[in-house]
């Protein structure tokens, strides 16, 4: 590059940068407008609605009450019971999912006979729509004609048909089982893909150093899998915490409110009781929890040392 053309190149670079900024804004503008309109504006409206007493439906008049909707929850036992129930659902289902998903991923990784067929099969429960999944299990759990009663009776485990979904402590666990059918394969898919990319030489070196199979799994493989496990964990925790669809079809919140989670309570407040203000406050709390988890998730995906 000759010195005389140097200034010209700088000039060209500057106009290119300006052109980039212009094109960039033009390309991103439609997305930003859509997101502002259908996500940001509504969530701010919801926050605004949550500051009002409004218990006669969506279009009724309302009175400003500040944060009273939030403070009443703090002293409302129903709220705390619902939170507890939601945490139970979240912890049990995410915990079991991770353990079983990891076990299945591990199983596939050892390449037993039929492992490719198993890997493909995992896609099916993941792809079946949530509502279909729920409807299917509801029919399996049916008190009078359900397959679960039929099977357990023929195996001699029960001696007469049992109306499973009318038992408060059983119903929640059956919803969890239906949820597991869908999410265990999902976790297994993610983790088996992660396992397939792990370098083998580290474990071989550990074996040479005298580590047994369990030690190699716990001390070498598990730490290497940590990023994949964390991603799956956060995604599933957010989803499980806001579970709604599958509960709607399997138990509709019953029996005796025993499967009402925080999202379901919000739905009831908004659309069954007409408590728009309280419902909005609840939904905002769910958003807040999600936001915190999202923050953790983004921090995990995009470590500072990596480029965006």
């Amino acid at each position, binding site marked *: 590059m000759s010195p005389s053309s140097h200034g010209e190149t700088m000039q060209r670079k500057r106009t290119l940068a300006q*052109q*980039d*900024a212009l*094109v*960039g*804004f033009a*390309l*991103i503008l439609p*997305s930003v407008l*859509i*997101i502002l309109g*259908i996500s940001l*504006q*509504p*969530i701010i*409206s*919801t926050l605004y*609605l949550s500051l009002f007493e409004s218990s006669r439906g*969506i*279009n009724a008049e309302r009175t400003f009450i500040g944060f009273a909707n939030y403070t009443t929850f703090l002293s409302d036992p129903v709220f705390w019971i619902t939170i507890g129930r939601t945490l139970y659902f979240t912890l049990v289902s995410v915990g079991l999912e991770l353990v079983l998903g990891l076990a299945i991923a591990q*199983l596939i990784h050892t390449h*037993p*006979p*039929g*492992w490719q067929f*198993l890997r*493909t*099969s995992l*896609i*099916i429960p993941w*792809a*079946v*729509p*949530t*509502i*279909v999944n729920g*409807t*299917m299990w509801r*029919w399996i759990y049916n008190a009078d*004609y359900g*397959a679960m009663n*039929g099977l357990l*009776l023929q195996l001699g485990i029960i001696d007469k048909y049992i109306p499973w979904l009318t038992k408060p402590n059983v119903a929640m666990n059956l919803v969890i089982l239906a949820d597991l*059918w869908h999410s265990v394969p*999902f976790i297994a*898919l*993610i983790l088996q*893909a992660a396992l397939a990319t792990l370098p083998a030489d580290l474990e071989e070196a550990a074996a040479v150093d005298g580590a047994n199979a369990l030690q190699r799994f716990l001390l070498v493989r598990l730490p290497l899998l940590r990023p*994949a496990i964390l991603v799956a964990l956060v995604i599933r925790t957010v989803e499980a915490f806001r579970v*709604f669809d599958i509960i*709607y*079809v399997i138990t509709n919140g019953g029996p005796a409110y025993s499967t009402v989670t925080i*999202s379901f309570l919000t*739905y009831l407040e908004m*659309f069954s009781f007409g408590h728009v203000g309280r419902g*909005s406050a609840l939904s905002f709390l769910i958003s807040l929890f*999600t936001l915190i988890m*999202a*923050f953790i998730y983004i921090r995990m995906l995009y470590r500072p040392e990596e480029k*965006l």
Partner: protein
Amino acid sequence: MKKTLHIIVLSLLVVLVLVFIYLPVAWLLISSISTRAELLSTPIHWIPQQPTLQNYINIFSPAQGTSEVAKTFRITLWNSLLVATSVTFIALVVGSLASYALIRLRFPFRQSMLIGILGTRMIPEISLVIPLYLFATRFGLFNSPVILIITYLSFALPFAIWLMAAFFDTIPVELEDAARIDGCNRIQTLWRIIMPISAPGLVSTGLFVFLTAWDEFFFALILTSTVAAKTVPVAIAEFTGRYVVDVGGMMTGGVLAAIPPVLLSLIFQRYIVSGLTAGAVKG
């Protein structure tokens, strides 16, 4: 000897997982081809003695005397297809442009915009639904496929941007530099160079967005009321709400609703696994 035992144990475990996966699906399929009498018999007829396709016929060529829900199911299938396809198309076009800009071009607030978009993807539907409902009623969009397309973009668009960003990031910058030396501007580079090699990314992103839209239940439940806009998940949930439950019809509806996503996922399974590892999640 020890090795054979090892293989036997592992094979048994494989069979166990396969049973857990396929048993419920098998029962769904069997129930859909059973007569009402056989479905309601005790002990259970695991294998139907008189398998029938009547439930499928009821949905696809509704004659007299078939249940109202079965008749309307066909229309809801169409609604689902229309909504999911439109959402996928819009999210792909609008989202991939934004995503390209966010990954490749230097401009102010780029990073905070990307993080902001990722954040909106996580907002739960229930926190948006009341304002969106008020919007729908004010503009006469309640119970129309249009409001579903609009509201579904709230999760589909950030999702598409996110997935495409992960994809664009893997395309070497040198390729674009070469195109620019040859005299292409940014838009030409995007159209002639980037889009053609992004085909796999577009396919997998489109697939995930379509599956998510097909699966969506909550917005459709709140924002629709008749077959004019009802989608398949709402139609299936309604089967259960009726006083007289048409189990055969319900299971048939379930099979039909599951066929498109399951087939697509199996055909494109390569893309599914790579998409999942890129952080894609249908849930």
